[in-house]
């Protein structure tokens, strides 16, 4: 008999990984199956606004409201345990007219109903005190003290790593192609293999409808809502201290200006409903829109200081209430954590608790593990160490004295560490998301070749096999002289053939 998992989670985004970690507290056999080559490598957990929402936005009584507020509260302890940087910067919803200011009252009331703590309506002077670089056209703002900023993929990677430390298993490059209920368990097929599991949790983000419909549960659909972003150089980071929103519209919470936890300035997202779930491109119109609207809040940023742009796709459910789709489906043992759009990242740890309870209600036996370790092995961040600590470290391991990424001051030691960790980096982007090598102003021009070399050495593969983000995203295409020889051989063959 093939191995039987207790719970198989589909999707290694922040929701799937949070569920896996939550369940790894119990004596369970857990498997996370991910289509991409890495954690948070494909979907919304990789590309979003990188913030923790306070929770005044969702409709009172909704899952979004409840899980947002609960999730927000959980992050301080989680980030401490998982060694993930977090900053409780607070957020502002800024009104630029008396009319917009009226909307702030509504948001405030909603926040109170949702149980959000630390909300206040503030005057222009107070806004300027909090955000000296905000435009003078500001009239008033809603200030939410509990909002914060965090690196979304950094957090997801940390959660996955800790889940793996506690026994959860992960498989990557494994797109689920079929799920069948076979008596009291499921057979989950991927392109490569099949897995047996008593319960299946659907945390497939934008594809959670496909997975749900595959198993034959009551169908629903999820569509992508595209958001385009720009990231500006760290020398622009001073322009925002909090997350600066504008008064929201029905398409979302609008375009924000925010510092990132690493000190850059983030601008975006736009909001546009599209059909193609694989659309990951930025567009000229989208970027221009993000810039124009952001300038309404803070017009001092210098667009020429843009270091990169990206598009994120929100998994927007096409249900009437637009709420998260969480619960056991009509197929017993198949549980949805689907249609998790904003504030999904903030809600993720609370969603994980909820899924745990749903599994328990569905009959899964939860026996706590005595040896569960909530703490991730601490991460060494060279830039954050004192010189004494650096010297001690370099003496123990000289690789920490070799700077590979000049822009972000990342050492070889740190890169090797993230390749060797559980659920480690396997690609250039994997390294970049974990240690920021290649994420600075030169965008990997200098360190790219060095990281390729380190990956090839550590993974014991040829540099030709090193990819940017898995699949066919190889960085290099041929060895120089070999390529010429192959071409020459072709020509010769052709000549011989023609002469014959």
């Amino acid at each position: 008999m093939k191995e039987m998992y207790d719970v198989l989670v589909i999707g290694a985004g922040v929701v799937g990984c949070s569920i896996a970690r939550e369940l790894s507290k119990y004596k369970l056999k857990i498997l996370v199956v991910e289509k991409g080559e890495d954690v948070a490598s494909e979907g919304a957990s990789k590309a979003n606004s990188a913030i923790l929402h306070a929770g005044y936005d969702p409709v009172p009584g909704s899952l979004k409201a409840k899980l947002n507020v609960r999730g927000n509260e959980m992050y301080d302890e989680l980030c401490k345990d998982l060694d993930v940087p977090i900053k409780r910067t607070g957020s502002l919803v800024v009104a630029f007219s008396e009319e917009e200011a009226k909307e702030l009252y509504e948001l405030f009331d909603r926040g109170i109903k949702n149980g959000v703590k630390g909300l206040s309506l503030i005057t222009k002077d107070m806004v300027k005190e909090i955000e000296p670089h905000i435009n003078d056209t500001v009239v008033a703002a809603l200030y939410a003290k509990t909002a914060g900023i965090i690196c979304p993929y950094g957090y997801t990677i940390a959660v996955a790593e800790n889940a793996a430390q506690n026994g959860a298993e992960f498989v990557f490059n494994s797109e689920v192609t079929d799920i069948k209920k076979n008596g009291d368990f499921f057979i989950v097929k991927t392109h490569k293999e099949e897995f047996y599991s008593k319960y299946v949790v659907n945390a497939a983000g934008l594809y959670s409808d496909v997975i749900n419909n595959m198993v034959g549960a009551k169908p629903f659909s999820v569509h992508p809502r595209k958001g385009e972003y720009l990231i500006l150089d760290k020398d622009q980071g001073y322009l925002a201290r909090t997350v600066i929103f504008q008064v929201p519209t029905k398409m979302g919470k609008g375009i924000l200006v925010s510092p990132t936890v690493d000190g850059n300035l983030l601008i975006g997202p736009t909001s546009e409903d599209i059909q193609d779930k694989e659309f990951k491109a930025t567009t000229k119109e989208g970027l221009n829109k993000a810039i124009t609207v952001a300038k309404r809040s803070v017009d001092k940023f210098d667009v020429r200081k843009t270091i990169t742009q990206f598009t994120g796709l929100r998994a927007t459910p096409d249900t009437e209430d637009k709420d998260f789709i969480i619960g056991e489906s009509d197929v017993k043992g198949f549980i949805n954590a689907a249609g998790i759009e904003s504030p999904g990242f903030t809600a993720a740890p609370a969603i994980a608790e909820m899924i745990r309870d749903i599994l328990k209600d569905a009959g899964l036996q939860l026996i706590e593990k005595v040896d569960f370790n909530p703490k991730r092995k601490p991460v060494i961040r060279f830039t954050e160490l004192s010189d004494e600590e650096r010297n001690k470290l370099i003496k123990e391991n000289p690789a920490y004295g070799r700077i590979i990424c000049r822009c972000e001051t990342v050492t070889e030691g740190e890169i090797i560490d993230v390749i060797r960790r559980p659920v480690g980096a396997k690609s250039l982007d994997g390294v970049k998301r974990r240690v920021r090598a290649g994420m600075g102003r030169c965008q990997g021009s200098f360190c790219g070749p060095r990281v390729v070399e380190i990956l090839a050495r550590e993974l014991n593969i040829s540099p030709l096999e090193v990819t940017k983000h898995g699949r066919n995203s190889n960085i290099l295409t041929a060895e120089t002289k070999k390529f010429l020889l192959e071409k020459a051989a072709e020509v010769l063959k052709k000549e011989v053939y023609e002469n014959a």
Partner: protein
Amino acid sequence: MLNYDIVIIGGGPAGLGAAVEAYEKGVKNIVIIERDKYLGGILQQCIHNGFGLQEFKEELTGPEYAQRFIDKVEEYDINVMLETMVLEITPDRIVKAVNSKEGVFTIKAGAIILAMGCRERPRGAIMIPGTRPAGILTAGTAQRYVNMEGYLPGKEIVILGSGDVGLIMARRLTLEGAKVKAVVELMPYSSGLTRNIVQCLEDFNIPLLLSHTVIEIHGKDRVEGVTIAKVDENREPIMETAQYISCDTLILSVGLIPENELSQKAGIELDPITGGPIVNEMLETSVPGIFACGNVLQVHDLVDNVTAEARLAANSAIRFIREGEFGKSSIIVKAGNGIRYVVPQKINVDNIEKRIKFRMRPVNVYNNAMLVVKSGDKYLLRQKRQRLTPGEMVDVNLSKDILKNANFEEGIVFLVEEG
């Protein structure tokens, strides 16, 4: 704390030139700090020839040019720290660095010469919409892969930008069997040297599409193609002219930026146009005792000019450690009509021995124009120039006698007069 008379940050052509000059002028307690595993900097990956025509009166490859200096560094036994990264410099000339042997350490420098070179503008900085697949890289990175690591980054290539490194790589990749489908340049002229356009593109029938740009990148995992379009006089793409080119690689050669993060930390004032420090006639930055030369100061076309600049920086550093601070540089040097920038940006005539060399770049292409130096309404110099182009740096030598005629309050202005 270590002590050196001169600390040179960067072991490329600028750093090497400065070190050799300082040693030959008798200052031997010097050190070169280099972040890579070897000296020579970017020259080591420039295996094409054309280096050294002025300096050595012969055509050398990049590594050969570098080796001439490295040999001298070895002969003189000049201190070199390899694989060592400078983390910080302070206005009182303390240099903090790290390597795997010594860990983090500090050096007290009599004078500092900045010679960190430049980096390439990446994709993000030019905002090309589209996907983010593998196969997008800067020309310098491509050069490193091909010439140093022995790998081809792609087989069917489009190059955006006609900077010199891009042109050189068009030829290099062609010689390695790749197909370079086009070099696409936003401006109506190339930003590269004429000799490179002839020898690297024309000789290989590679089309140079002026006034064109890449408007979208396609491909999910690896680049599958780019859409290019002609641009109007405001550099806005004309959508009707859009065409798709299939390729697996997009190489960017869209400009070089002096690497001045360290300088900024030391409070050195930068010129927003050059991206390098504002310097005086001694190539001294706004912080006394810290000098700059080579591509960290301004992006050069020819390494020979870098070497010349490095010599001046070395001699100035020596004078600083022997005589102390220089007098105030009171004449402001400005770029006028048709000139993008001039280096140095300020001068003190008293410090000039006989003459001084100004380096500048035109903003546009001018044929048979007058290059003019004025102070107020007074003409200090008028020179006929057959051709001025942004791709080729312009030198102007001014003698001390001419400069004495300048009006200190009005400063001096370099400009182009047409017709």
